[in-house]
């Protein structure tokens, strides 16, 4: 295993609000690294900084040991190796097939390769018969699975998931979580960073978990230790269910 993502003493403020405070952690390849915490804890800001959509005010973001910045001219080239799925299902106003093809066509991939991958993904999603339909006609769960496929069809090394299964029915949650496992199993060089407030999802998917609270990470531990023997009393209270998010 190698280090996929490393944050060193990262701070981010929005006006008077400190969204992220002195955050450091390491996410390794082959693992799902979970960031648990309540709404407003700064989890999404953290992901946006890893995806180079925002720059930290202080500290460093390293991807594969390379110090990166959202302000760099080649930020979009670094983003090409990253996939991101947001909480809200996002589809472009075009057909299902063209939504899948989008992330490959902007990379200038060969049309035949794009067509092949689109066909594979449509089959995997069970949407072969609706390839030409506008993606906005899909259900919320289908849209989110399409968003997931669009973010992974170009084989990124790093997948960032921001509450990606929140507000979905149990069947779609299971399907999406299986897609995460498949993504990771396909290549040992891949890594996933998952932001969630769902303790059960973290238990099902994550290998290592950080608890984020009011912009700070108060504990980082392997799954077993996090749930069975945490160091911080707040983590213990959270795991026991004494603190409701």
């Amino acid at each position, binding site marked *: 295993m190698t280090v996929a993502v490393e944050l060193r003493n990262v701070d981010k403020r929005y006006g008077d609000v400190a969204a992220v405070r002195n955050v450091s952690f390491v996410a390794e390849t082959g693992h799902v690294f979970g960031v648990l915490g309540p709404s407003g804890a700064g989890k999404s800001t953290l992901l*946006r900084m890893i995806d180079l959509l925002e720059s930290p005010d202080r500290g460093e973001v390293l991807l594969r040991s390379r110090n990166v910045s959202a302000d760099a001219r080649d930020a*979009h080239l670094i*983003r090409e190796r990253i996939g991101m799925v947001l909480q809200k299902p*996002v589809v*472009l*106003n075009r057909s299902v097939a063209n939504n899948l093809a989008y*992330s490959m066509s*902007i990379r200038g991939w060969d049309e035949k390769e794009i067509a092949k991958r689109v066909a594979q993904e449509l089959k995997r999603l069970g949407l072969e018969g609706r390839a030409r339909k506008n993606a906005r006609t899909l259900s919320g769960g289908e849209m989110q699975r399409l968003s997931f496929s669009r973010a992974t069809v*170009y084989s990124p090394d790093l997948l*960032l998931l921001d509450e990606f299964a929140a507000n979905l029915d149990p069947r779609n949650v299971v399907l999406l979580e299986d897609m995460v496992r498949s993504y990771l199993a396909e290549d040992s060089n891949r890594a996933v960073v998952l932001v969630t407030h769902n303790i059960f999802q973290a238990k099902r998917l994550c290998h290592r978990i950080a608890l984020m609270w009011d912009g700070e990470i108060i504990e980082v531990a392997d799954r077993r230790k996090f749930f069975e023997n945490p160091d911080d009393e707040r983590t213990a209270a959270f795991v026991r269910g004494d603190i409701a998010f």
Partner: protein
Amino acid sequence: MADLFSYDVLQVTLLSLYVSGCATMLGSSIGIPLGALVGLKEFGGKGAVKTITYTMYGFPPVISGLVIYYLFSRSGPFGSLGLLFTPTAMIFAETLLVIPLTAGVTITAVTEIDKSIKDTIRAVGATPRQCVLTVMREAWVGLVMAAMIGFGRAIAEVGAAYMVGGNIFGETRVLTTAIMMETRMGHFGYALGLGVVLIMVAGAVFMFLRYLQEKELL
């Protein structure tokens, strides 16, 4: 007073379509990309640029006509081109009126595209140029609306067209200037008939643009 179904009316109608169509295309091809850049890029003075653009919605046609008249008059910088009192001068004058409208509507259209869509486009690795183009495509309905409003301004325009065109029969007479002339001559019924033709022509163009809006052909 001529027959409403005469060759003369057809010729005036076609020239109206030609002038306002060209002004819409020229104005849209400048105003829409400008509006997209202003709407999507962050820069100092952006608020002032937007305010000026929206203020220009009310740009008086006679001022636009005056500017073009000066530029193409014999003593103006482009006087040697001999374009004054030609359809080309009318197109330029109407283009000046179309640009702020198409730019302003485009600013609103691209600004209203959901932030999550813009984030997703960037997150999948689109270059800054690809981001702008994709957001413009997402805002397609709004962009066609910008062109529709621009065309509406151009086809209904009379002051600038009269000033730089001169209402020369067979050369620069368009429906609006013809209506004005016929009214002055007391041919109210005929002027009203031309008005109906103008509305029908505009309606046909708007139906075509609505078709583009729904089918997303472009």
